[in-house]
């Protein structure tokens, strides 16, 4: 560590005479994510990533980069407010935003309105695109997004369920929020593809988040559904799973979005957490490398674990990749201080990042969306940590290795 720091210092001294051409003001990057409030688990690793970046940027003499971090406080209003602050007061050149439609959408809208280039991630592309009233014909001018979509979740869940023997009856837990309504939507959501693959979906209807009683759903699923799916928040997952046990309902497969992403949430479930399955956007076993540090996914996760003393989480890779895309675009832009040129550089991105390749105008459904691979994982008792996420199905992204098969819950 000391040698590295000494090296950076030495480089800074050696670089002194070149200050003449670095006299232009530094590039300012605004970064918005939820640091506090209900969505805070998503933003937990951001501080670590920004520290990592500040070290890198300090050593980069070609372009001087300054990162300004803002907290959305898990509120869409606050997210829009801090985005306007960044754009109008701090005069940032580029905005990065991550984690849930509640954070990314208002920030992207502010950037679109003020004509500031913006890169966003960690929102399935449907709520990001359609949630902002995107016109598929025109797309957006200033905002670019990389992540996966609902079709990938459905594909992965189905592939997992088809690999085990069940009665193909699926109980759906879709709350009355942005995600729940999208997943349960008759046209764009789960019902159609499930039917096409011979699965029957039992959907009792939308419910409110922070529900205290799931007896109605349990009564509808009991003695019918072998599989339970949905997109619920952690307390609702715990209430449902506990009540299901109490009322004698034991599904063979439970595959939930959102609630099972973070190891902390699984630990809070206790014994009920074992064998639950969920979508995996990024893991240490993803075969990708950072274009900035050269770290593999595993090395990045390990450096987080040793720095924080906590188990890795999926947003780490995406927070890192945001900066990969940002720095790559800044270096390619002829004049990064010119917003149009920087935007064009972002749009022309074709970069292999720690979360997979990012390229706009090609692989995604629209010119503003670049899709990253998605696989299915299952939480099992681990060696290093209490529960570990093991990849059990990779039908959509065969380059990501599987480490096991989906097991039925005992």
């Amino acid at each position, binding site marked *: 560590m000391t040698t590295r720091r000494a090296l950076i210092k030495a480089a800074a001294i050696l670089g002194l005479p070149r200050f003449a051409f670095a006299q232009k003001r530094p590039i300012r990057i605004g970064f918005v994510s939820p640091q506090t*409030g209900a969505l805070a688990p998503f933003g937990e690793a951001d501080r670590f990533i920004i520290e990592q970046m500040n070290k890198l940027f300090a050593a980069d003499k070609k372009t001087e980069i300054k990162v300004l971090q803002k907290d959305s406080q898990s509120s869409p209003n606050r997210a829009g407010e801090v985005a306007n602050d960044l754009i109008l007061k701090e005069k940032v050149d580029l905005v990065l935003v991550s984690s849930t439609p509640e954070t990314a959408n208002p920030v992207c809208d502010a950037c679109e309105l003020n004509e500031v280039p913006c890169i966003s991630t960690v929102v399935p592309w449907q709520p990001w695109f359609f949630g902002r009233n995107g016109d598929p014909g025109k797309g957006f001018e200033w905002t670019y997004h990389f992540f996966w979509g609902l079709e990938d979740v459905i594909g992965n869940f189905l592939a997992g369920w088809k690999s085990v023997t069940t009665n193909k009856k699926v109980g759906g837990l879709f709350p009355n929020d942005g995600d729940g309504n999208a997943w349960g939507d008759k046209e764009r959501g789960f019902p159609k593809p499930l039917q096409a693959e011979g699965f029957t979906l039992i959907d009792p209807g939308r419910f409110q988040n922070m529900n205290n009683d799931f007896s109605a759903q349990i009564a509808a699923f009991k003695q019918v559904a072998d599989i339970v799916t949905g997109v619920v928040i952690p307390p609702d997952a715990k209430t449902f799973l506990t009540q299901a046990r109490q009322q004698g309902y034991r599904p063979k497969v439970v595959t939930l979005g959102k609630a099972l992403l973070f190891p902390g949430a699984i630990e809070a479930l206790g014994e009920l957490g074992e064998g639950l399955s969920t979508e995996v956007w990024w893991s240490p076993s993803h075969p990708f490398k950072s274009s900035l540090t050269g770290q593999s996914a595993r090395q990045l996760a390990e450096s987080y674990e040793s720095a924080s003393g906590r188990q890795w989480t999926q947003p780490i890779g995406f927070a890192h990749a945001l900066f990969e895309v940002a720095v790559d675009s800044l270096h390619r832009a002829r004049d990064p201080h010119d917003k149009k040129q920087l935007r064009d550089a972002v749009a022309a991105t074709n970069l292999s990042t720690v979360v997979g390749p990012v390229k706009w105008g090609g692989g995604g459904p629209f010119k503003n969306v670049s899709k990253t691979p998605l696989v299915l994982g299952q939480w099992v008792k681990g060696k290093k940590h209490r529960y570990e996420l093991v990849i059990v199905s990779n039908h959509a992204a065969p380059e990501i290795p599987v480490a096991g098969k989906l097991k039925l819950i005992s």
Partner: protein
Amino acid sequence: MLSFLDTLVQGVLLGGLYALFALGQSLLFGVMRLTNTAHGDFIILSAFVAWSLAVVTGSPWLALIVLLPLAFAGGYLLQRLVLNGTIGKDPMRSLVVTFGLAIVIQNVLQQIYTADPRSIDSGGLNTATFQLAEGFSIGALPLLIFAAALALTVGLQLLFDRTDLGRAFRAVSDDREAAELMGLDHRHVYALATGIAFLVVAFAGTLHGMKTTVSATDGPSLLLYAFEAVIIGGMGSFYGTLVGGMLLGVTQDIGFRIDPGWGIWTGHVVFLGALLLRPSGLFPRTR
């Protein structure tokens, strides 16, 4: 028939949970008209403290035993040092102060416990179950929550009706000045009431933490049902609060069975209906 019975039983058990949330609020409301908007956050706070104690002591029940005196002392001091200053003709002051407390609690909890959801390990009690008939079973933990709500209701009502302390509570509630003339120190009486209310909060927090996961910002969502149960039941009556909780739980559960989106709504409709027909609640005891 069985499914109707199931709905009813699950609704009553849910009502027990709401009553447990509401009893502490009912006491504060009944004795000093204090609208504690941080009530839900205090439940979450006690759930986190119980979680920490359970990790240290290794048993949730030991944790609860340690938590109870802490909660009483915390409640007493909070009332004596902070909330007593807000009580008066203007309800705005206590509203604003407790609202501020709610924000402070949420952020302090997040600072200490991070944003991870936590759950108190009940040693398998949360999944233990009694089968009453084929396809109809009830959980041990909801039953325990219900029993706790019932016992605390009876206990509080007896305390209120039969003891000197209860008489003091009723006296300062009915006419503070007259009670002062009789030698009661209302600040001390209020603080005792809050201390006792926090004992109930400690029970509610610990059991809630076993039932589901808690995270720092969950408090406000618990407040609403507690409020509704108190209002439906009528001020100063703990039996009323219990009945209010039951009514809320059962109507919500019937609503849930019709459509999962309806449960909360039918609960609110019953609340509004009660407010319309009996503005002072079903069994009001104090003015």
